[in-house]
């Protein structure tokens, strides 16, 4: 019995009127945890009851503490009939279970009812007393920290990055149980909310156990998803990256790393204390001496390896850490891991050595009822299969790891498409484990690694290429071979040298399919998939060329299955990497020769395309320096001779990946418009309108080429559903509709946010679903961040001055690339004068505005502002504390759709309510922001004839405390010498 949960119900406010006669409410509260329930007194006749209850104490196992949510129900007392429920609050107490996070949850929570929405608020205080439990074979994993952020969280450093953890749990969906026929929609919704809450608690606990077995203390890039499989059940699955994190708390460690964040955040949120991560591996307080010796020679993700085949659900139960340990002793590091996958998209410097390209795998499955929820074998086997495929793809690319890894599903009736994708990469094993045998290898890699372009160099063998590709010598260092185009699922590495700005690139595609049942349906889908992948890829490639760019980051391809169609939507951020060759243009060729008008038409099209490319180059400021051998005198220390050790690894694999399909055509870039289809494609290429001036957009964390963010941010979710006219449903019409839908949506966003110009939409995340036959739903979540044009100039100047000093390039055009992110210069630039200006200009202004604006009558506002962002950072601010993950699932249903303003009114209100509940939970934890926020699911179903609608939303993120830089200034002025420190430490890595 290692924990005591204490709950106090303080007061309520804005309660709804439950008694029509008196226009008042007699409210009381039930507090439930596990099977124990407490009640407050009834507070008679008030809409603002003051219960001020005693402390309700629950004595519980920590296992339960992790699994169960605290359930608070507000009811209206009725003497003669049953008490009416007003609404509920579910509080996840997990953040109270690890010492560094929140210590108390206290605040106003919206009282939520699945039928009526938010109905007033309740003030609750929750505390947990944990007793130390020395039992090593326990089932709980209290103390393991979870982060949704897909990079090493800001105030931590990575001691070891252990690797992939995954788990899934299944259950019957209460909505499809027999009892659902006789219970109210409210009861059914609440059963579902509660079940999912329980399942995610359990899942998190099990993942935590695996992390403990790996001797880690945290999960980074934690992604949890629900598969609503309908009749066949409910699957909750999660993946993440197990790490050993060390909090940067001692002043010595704190200063160099966190003194720079003002700069760090602005220029790139991904920067991590460069050398510290590696250096302190050996004296980490978390890894005791014995611990590190023991871990020396085994693969840390082995628990997964051994048990996945039989269902990883049981992994935690069978093997104690010691047992697992013995088995692992003989295995060597990375190559032996079952799944050398990392859900991270940004890495500590030096971690990423080479990037091979995107690897992805999909499979179509028929859902069957999950008979025994305790044995989720089938689902586990399915994922294991896909992961194997990903792994072999990566191998074929000469890579031993996959980074930026993610998994997703799309379900329609009993067909399910499982997808996984990531970026094949070669990693520096230093971070993966301390004291490995490959020590010397790393050393050499470290020494010879050219910064800024190293990750572009091909990891596969030139003579044994897995697919035909154009290779050239790197335009940066001129020593190694690079491909002509690079696709990845990760964020742009901070040390990458980029020319100009980036932009959001999307490929959109629809394919009709016949309605079919079971196997026939699955087969039809399987047959369509490769073609869709190919076309999506071609579209991406063409659009990239059209933008005059040569690399894609953050690539995410979503394939959605519906009753009678398949939709593909790929989003990525295109950039021009200085290391890769200039992309050639697009040539159009017709197959019907000797037709005058036709040729004229073609030449007309060709001209249009060329014009567009030229225009885009100007728009995105892509002015690569003239390619002449002498000028590329790079400021970066040139590597003498790179070790060829890595090469040999790829030779062992001779597999050919599915991906090669698309690469096959790469060298040509000739569009043959021999039929109307292709003609359509060319047209659609040209219909994409660039964002209005002052706007940029990307789906990565930050926009390459912009580094002077102000503190003004606006996160938003936009949802559109269109109904297709069922008549002329051809592939072309469908494509056009879908394309228009996405383009119009973007246009609307630009218009809505026009007051924020100059501004960039970051982390633009599109999700497509097909809720019904003729309906297409697109959900977009992104954050708009304003940047300062004037500051851009300043930074550019400083930067240019720098580059003038160190390089021979005094080319005018160099002025055009402010974001020449060279690893050796940027993270280490102290910019003392520039920084001071930045800080003074940006933050106090925002603060000042805020203060001025608070007009006297509103000064007594009690609601604190909570920022939300899908990014891992907050511009102009420093995150000082992570309070735990927010993972919330809500259902909202209505039987009076028209009265609530139709579907738009209903969903608008619901999303606003979800935001409100997220903010309230964060505020109650003592936080003032949610970072890495994501709306993972937004399932909307309507039945206008019955005046009904239902929506399920699942969101997650990291609750944090941030401090404005202006407030930090006091600290930094006290230690002026500290400013130069990061430059010294940063320099060590590269020199």
């Amino acid at each position: 019995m290692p924990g005591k949960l204490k709950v106090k119900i303080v007061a309520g406010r804005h309660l709804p009127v439950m008694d029509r006669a008196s226009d008042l409410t007699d409210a009381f509260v039930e507090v439930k945890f596990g099977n124990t329930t407490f009640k407050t007194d009834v507070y008679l006749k008030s809409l603002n009851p003051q219960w001020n209850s005693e402390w309700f104490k629950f004595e519980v196992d920590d296992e339960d503490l992790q699994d169960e949510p605290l359930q608070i129900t507000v009811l209206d007392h009725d003497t003669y009939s049953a008490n009416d429920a007003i609404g509920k609050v579910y509080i996840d107490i997990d953040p109270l279970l690890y010492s560094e996070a929140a210590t108390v949850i206290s605040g106003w929570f919206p009282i939520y009812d699945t039928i009526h929405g938010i109905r007033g608020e309740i003030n609750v205080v929750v505390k947990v007393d944990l007793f130390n439990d020395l039992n090593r074979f326990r089932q709980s994993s209290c103390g393991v920290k979870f982060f949704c952020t897909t990079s090493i969280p800001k105030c931590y450093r990575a001691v070891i990055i252990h690797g992939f953890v995954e788990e899934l749990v299944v259950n019957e969906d209460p909505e499809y149980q027999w009892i659902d026929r006789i219970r109210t929609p409210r009861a059914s919704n609440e059963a579902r909310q509660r079940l999912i809450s329980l399942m995610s608690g359990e899942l998190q606990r099990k993942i935590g156990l695996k992390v403990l077995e790996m001797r880690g203390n945290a999960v980074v890039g934690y992604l949890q998803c629900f598969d609503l499989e309908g009749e066949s059940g409910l699957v909750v699955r999660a993946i993440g990256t197990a790490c050993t994190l060390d909090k940067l708390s001692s002043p010595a460690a704190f200063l160099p790393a966190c003194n720079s964040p003002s700069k760090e955040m602005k220029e790139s949120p991904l920067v991590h204390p460069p050398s510290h991560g590696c250096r302190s591996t050996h004296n980490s307080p978390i890894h005791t001496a014995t611990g590190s010796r023991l871990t020396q020679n085994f693969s840390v993700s082995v628990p997964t390896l051994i048990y996945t085949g039989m269902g990883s659900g049981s992994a935690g139960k069978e093997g104690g850490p010691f047992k697992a340990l013995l088995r692992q002793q003989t295995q060597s590091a990375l190559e032996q891991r079952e799944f050398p996958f990392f859900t991270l998209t940004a890495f500590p410097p030096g971690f990423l050595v080479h990037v091979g390209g995107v690897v992805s795998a999909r499979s179509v499955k028929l859902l069957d009822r999950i008979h025994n929820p305790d044995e989720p074998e089938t689902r586990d086997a399915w994922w294991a299969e896909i992961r194997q495929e990903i792994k072999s793809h990566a191998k074929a690319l000469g890579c031993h790891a996959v980074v930026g890894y993610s998994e997703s599903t799309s379900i329609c009736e009993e067909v399910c498409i499982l997808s996984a994708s990531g970026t094949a990469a070669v990693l520096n094993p230093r971070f993966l484990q301390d004291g490995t045998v490959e020590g010397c290898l790393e050393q050499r890699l470290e020494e010879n690694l050219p910064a800024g372009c190293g990750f572009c160099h091909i990891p596969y063998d030139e003579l044994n290429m897995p697919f035909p590709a154009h290779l050239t010598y790197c335009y940066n260092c001129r020593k190694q071979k690079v491909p002509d185009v690079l696709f990845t699922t990760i964020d742009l590495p901070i040390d990458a040298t980029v020319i100009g700005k980036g932009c959001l690139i999307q490929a959109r595609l629809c394919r009709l399919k016949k309605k079919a049942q079971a196997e026939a349906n699955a087969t039809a889908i399987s047959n369509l998939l490769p073609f869709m992948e190919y076309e999506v890829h071609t579209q991406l490639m063409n659009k990239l060329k059209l933008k005059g760019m040569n690399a894609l980051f953050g690539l995410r391809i979503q394939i959605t299955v519906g009753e009678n169609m398949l939709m593909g939507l790929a989003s990525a951020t295109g950039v021009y990497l200085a290391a890769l060759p200039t992309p050639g243009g697009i040539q159009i060729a017709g197959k019907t020769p000797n037709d005058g008008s036709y040729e004229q038409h073609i030449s007309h099209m060709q001209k249009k395309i060329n014009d567009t490319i030229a225009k885009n180059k100007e728009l995105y400021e892509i002015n690569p320096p003239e390619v002449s051998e002498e000028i590329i005198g790079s400021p970066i220390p040139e590597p003498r001779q790179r070790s060829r050790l890595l090469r040999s690894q790829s030779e062992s694999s001779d597999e050919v990946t599915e991906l090669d399909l698309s690469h096959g055509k790469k060298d040509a870039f000739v569009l043959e418009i021999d039929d109307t289809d292709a003609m359509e494609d060319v047209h659609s290429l040209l219909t994409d309108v660039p964002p209005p001036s002052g706007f940029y957009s990307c789906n990565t964390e930050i926009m390459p080429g912009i580094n002077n963010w102000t503190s003004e941010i606006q996160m938003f979710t936009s949802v559109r559903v269109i109904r297709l006219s069922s008549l002329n449903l051809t592939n072309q019409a469908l494509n056009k509709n879908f394309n228009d839908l996405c383009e119009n949506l973007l246009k609307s966003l630009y218009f809505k946010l026009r007051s924020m110009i100059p501004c960039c939409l970051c982390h633009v995340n599109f999700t497509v679903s097909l809720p019904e036959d003729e309906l297409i739903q697109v959900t977009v979540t992104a954050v708009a961040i304003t940047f300062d044009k004037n500051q851009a100039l300043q930074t550019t100047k400083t930067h240019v001055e720098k580059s003038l000093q160190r390089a021979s390039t005094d080319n005018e055009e160099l002025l055009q690339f402010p974001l020449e992110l060279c690893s050796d210069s940027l993270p280490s630039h102290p910019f003392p004068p520039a920084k001071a200006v930045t800080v003074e200009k940006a933050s106090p202004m925002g603060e000042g505005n805020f203060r001025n604006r608070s007009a006297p009558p509103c000064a007594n506002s009690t609601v604190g502002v909570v920022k939300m962002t899908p990014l891992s950072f907050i511009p102009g601010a420093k995150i000082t504390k992570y309070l735990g993950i927010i993972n919330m699932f809500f259902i909202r249903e209505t039987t009076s759709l028209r009265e609530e303003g139709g579907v738009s009114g209903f969903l608008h209100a619901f999303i606003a309510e979800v935001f409100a509940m997220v903010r309230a939970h964060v505020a109650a934890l003592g936080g003032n922001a949610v970072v890495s926020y994501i709306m993972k699911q937004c399932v909307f179903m309507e039945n206008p004839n019955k005046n009904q609608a239902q929506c399920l939303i699942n969101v997650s993120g990291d609750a944090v405390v941030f401090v404005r830089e202006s407030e930090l200034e006091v600290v930094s002025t006290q230690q002026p010498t500290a400013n130069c420190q990061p430059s010294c430490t940063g320099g060590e890595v590269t020199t």
Partner: protein
Amino acid sequence: MTSELDIFVGNTTLIDEDVYRLWLDGYSVSDAVALRVRSGILEQTGATAAVLQSDTMDHYRTFHMLERLLHAPPKLLHQLIFQIPPSRQALLIERYYAFDEAFVREVLGKKLSKGTKKDLDDISTKTGITLKSCRRQFDNFKRVFKVVEEMRGSLVDNIQQHFLLSDRLARDYAAIVFFANNRFETGKKKLQYLSFGDFAFCAELMIQNWTLGAVDSQVDDMDVDLDKEFLQDLKELKMLVADKDLLDLHKSLVCTALRGKLGVFSEMEANFKNLSRGLVNVAAKLTHNKDVRDLFVDLVEKFVEPCRSDHWPLNDVRLFLNQYSASVHSLDGFRHQALWDRYMGTLRGCLLRLYHD
């Protein structure tokens, strides 16, 4: 391809001031879109009509959701659903409770009842303000009235506290509540030249001096109801005109003091008794509710119009009223000096404000 659903929800609720104004003015979505198109926004932003339509719908939906909260502004501050910066909250409230001059002149002094609400159609036709906007303004008046009518303490403070309005707007509402409660007639033709500001000015003076709150700050309705006792006492002033000696003495005192200082001296001298009778009789009649209602009609009839027809300049009116009030202190036979000052002090202020073309 038709849009079934189209929403945008920001973590910070986006408020477009222009669209808010259109919404408050009661325009339908399509009218608002047309007006926005005319404003040239499409050319400025390069947006399409469809984008504008979607944007307008979205804002209208937001405003519709906010309206419930705007009915009780403190709720807007404490609610958790919409995250709105304080400056924006203040703007939303202030604009929502703002009213049109043309509208308020139609309703001022009328009972805020269902009956009046039915007349809103006519008011809408007459003023050109949309019926929707008329309803909102009327409901605002009524809502504020209901909340503060039986409340203790300063009227302006109460309004400010419960509706979080700016000082200026709260004062206007105090006037509206005061007029509605006392049902002062403001709609007569001869009062048409007066603005809402004129009435609000008078209301403020009357609240300060003539209500219960002027003598005792601890009673209910203190600022809303006139001090009945005071009105009753005003009968005593009648002797100023009934007693012929007193009237003559008063006249001579005023004339002596003003001789040579007034451009319209002879007119004043000739009219003195009429004017004085008028002003004192107004006071004496205030015991009857009906006469209270006609206060402004009487003031205009008995004082403003006679002076205006003789083309008194405003400064002469001021000099006259000052002297007229002050001279009473020298009337030995008159004992109600304090009462006179309480009455005339306010009336002088009102008359000076009402005296214009």
